[in-house]
């Protein structure tokens, strides 16, 4: 038997060697099957392959082989339009580690002066531990003496200043946990903004400052830290409570009935560490948990995204807020400070009756039998960054600063 005529225009050229921007092991994994398309929030709003995970990997490949150069406007645009939410990872049959690819992409694409100035500024603040300590001092986060212990709470760089109540709530739930005030940023901010080496360095340093198990109330930080320090050393709060067998006590009530509570997953907690059942179980223990369509997808906070791309951020959030309102819930629980800020600010803006509350706050309120306070107003003059002109404007009225770390 002989084979059929070999195709004359056979294109079986082997892949040419690349420029070394990407780890070929990571980039070669993608089989272009397209399974990631329906999971991607930016594809959902654009319906354009170029704004999908598969399309972005095609663009990365074009960058790697030199078919497109780094100044290509679409390459620049997509490296920043991508939320970095990693919703494309759990659905990928080939196990493509998209988050790692995106870090390598931004390391190159956003190197030096190509980095958005705002991201640069935030990173500089986060690297300065004394500054972080000061913010926390003013806002009174929880603290204990720094004794070498098994388990300590990570305060988070911006979280300690923005949501100091969260660490206090954790102390209510875990009275024995140590909260040494001398601790820096975990470096997730850097890793997601084109400084992945610095991001790893900061994580290692934090690992030295907090020996033993690190408990964090920030899903995004948990995923980054676990990636550097090892999965075993890092527990996100809900995971820690589940692992230590802590049973939530009490109940959250509104007008004499159990509160109806939905969740907003933290992308990296869910897609990176695959933790999503734990917070749901905890909520169900103290309130009526309401699953809402899309509660697993990115809220548009996405690290610095809501600051760098406010319009896209809102476009991605809007249908989600509609869904929460349609479900008629009282609270949306968050497990990451960036999501907390994003939901809090935007629910307020649309004058919604729903409040965003961190999981720690919900559980502490249940345990103490106190009503949950209204989402707190962040009392500083609104600082608006106008990115196109690169200038800063001070808003006339008070409001919410668009922080998210």
């Amino acid at each position, binding site marked *: 038997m002989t084979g059929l*005529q070999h195709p004359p225009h056979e294109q079986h050229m*082997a892949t040419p060697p690349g420029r070394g921007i990407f780890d070929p092991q990571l980039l070669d994994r993608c089989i272009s*099957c397209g399974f990631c398309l329906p999971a991607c929030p930016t594809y959902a709003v654009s319906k354009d392959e170029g704004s999908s995970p*598969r399309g972005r990997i095609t663009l990365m490949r074009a960058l790697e082989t030199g078919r497109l150069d780094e100044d290509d406007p679409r390459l620049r645009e997509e490296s920043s339009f991508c939320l970095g939410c990693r919703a494309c990872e759990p659905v990928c049959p080939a196990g493509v580690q998209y988050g790692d690819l995106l870090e390598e992409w931004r390391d190159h694409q956003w190197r030096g002066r190509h980095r958005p100035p705002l991201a640069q500024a935030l990173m500089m603040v986060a690297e300065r531990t004394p500054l972080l300590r000061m913010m926390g001092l003013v806002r009174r986060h929880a603290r204990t003496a720094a004794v070498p212990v098994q388990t300590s709470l990570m305060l988070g760089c911006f979280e300690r200043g923005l949501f100091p109540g969260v660490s206090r709530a954790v102390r209510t739930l875990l009275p024995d946990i140590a909260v040494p005030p001398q601790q820096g940023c975990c470096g997730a901010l850097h890793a997601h903004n084109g400084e992945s080496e610095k991001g790893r360095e900061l994580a290692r340093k934090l690992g030295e400052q907090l020996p033993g198990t690190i408990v964090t109330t920030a899903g995004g930080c948990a995923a980054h830290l676990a990636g550097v320090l090892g999965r075993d050393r890092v527990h996100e709060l809900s995971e820690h409570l589940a692992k230590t067998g802590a049973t939530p006590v009490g109940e959250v009530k509104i007008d004499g009935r159990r509160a109806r509570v939905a969740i907003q997953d933290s992308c990296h907690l869910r897609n990176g560490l695959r933790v999503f059942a734990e917070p749901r179980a905890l909520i169900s223990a103290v309130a009526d948990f309401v699953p809402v369509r899309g509660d697993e997808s990115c809220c548009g906070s996405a690290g610095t995204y809501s600051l760098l791309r406010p319009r896209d951020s809102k476009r991605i959030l809007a249908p989600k807020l509609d869904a929460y309102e349609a479900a008629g819930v009282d609270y949306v629980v968050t497990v990451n400070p960036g999501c907390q800020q994003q939901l809090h600010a935007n629910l307020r803006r649309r004058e919604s009756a729903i409040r965003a509350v961190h999981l720690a706050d919900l559980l502490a309120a249940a345990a103490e039998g106190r009503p949950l306070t209204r989402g707190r107003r962040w009392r500083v003059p609104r600082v608006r960054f106008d990115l196109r002109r690169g200038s800063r404007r001070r808003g006339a009225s008070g409001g919410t600063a668009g922080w998210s770390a």
Partner: protein
Amino acid sequence: MTLDRTLVAELEAIVGAKHVRTDPGDVEPYARDATPVFRAVPDAVVWPADTEQVAALLRLATERRVPVVPRGAGSNLCAATVPERGGIVLVLTRMDRILEISPGELLARVEAGVPTSVLADAAAAQGLLYAPDPGSRTVSTVGGNVATCAGGLRGLKYGVTRNYVLGTTAVLPTGEVISTGGRLWKDVAGYDLTRLLTGSEGTLGVLTELTVALLPMPATTNTGVAYFGSLAEAGRAVDAIIGDGIVPATLEFLDAKCIGAVEEYANLGLRLDAGALLLFGDDGPADVVDRNLGRIGEQCTISGALEVTLAEDVARSEALLTARRCSLPALSRLGTLTLLEDATVPRPRLAAMVDRIDEIADRYEVPMATFGHAGDGNLHPTCVVDQRDEAAIHRAHKAFGDVFAAAIEMDGTITGEHGVGAAKLPYLAARLGADQMALLRRIKAAFDPAGILNPGKLGS
């Protein structure tokens, strides 16, 4: 070729400037689909919003002799959407409305860009089943399914996409809008153009709207698994099952190499000492399903199965189906270039064909594993190599040439469900013969006199 400025302006006038892209970074992602290796960059990408816009675009393209390649989700595996001659890629993803689901008439009307699983879910919400379920259903579009006549895991009992298309709205390359078929199960007025357009791979017209048949949702489904010492024994079991008068919804197989790869990837607790795995499933009223699965199990045992297990619950049943669905990704992890084919033979020759494939793979020294739809003889021999190893890729292509020849020799075909596209066009004449090839070209010319619609594919 690059498009001249006035043409781009005319495209923009039809669909709006926002929906026309021509920059290199914007068109690069449309250079390929799910097919490995094949790649060609288009000159423009357009996203029409409705049938009228599609018609205006095609009229313009015919007038200017510019190639147009229709594209759904780009999940096809035969390079059917690779714009080999450049031109315009016409993407239907903006046309994604479900127009109607009619439980009374058991049908649905959708725009072409609706994802398959969105249609299936919407039907299920009304207690109805959209039966075609290609493995890619979460990604693929209904338009793409019809254009490729997609199959799936339920083909034996339920047939393929073709069996569910009642009517289409299609735009001819010259701009006329035609309606074929409709809401009727019986309609013999004229040639069956609905069937002709089904599987035409975007070479005869652009489908903009489809009317598809639905079924009542079966009450239950269940799954079981049987292990055999060899694929030949599994093949005998398949004959015995159907000989016993049972047509199960699902009858899938994995060879020993696939079992190994899947177990390594998904840890489902599969038996690694078996030569073949047969996955069977059925749906319907609970008592009928139970009885059928029991009889299938018996036939497997009689045919020499090492072990037969029925899924005790839905979760286990899903896990077993996962074993089949993840065959391709599991294999793909063994290397960096996964070449997948879908040669198909009459069911009784399945085992013989798998032996032939193994022999060919040995001869060309390429690793090849085979899984597929045992119920309908549709095989997926899969070859995993290193994408930088030119020699191995070359040997793999040679090996597939032999696989196709073997399939044809056994009264089979070069592709059961993935389609011809650019990837298998060179082998098509061997399957159809010169007369049919010439007829295909005449049909193509009747629809598309200027030859602008997906050139270099079917009908070329």
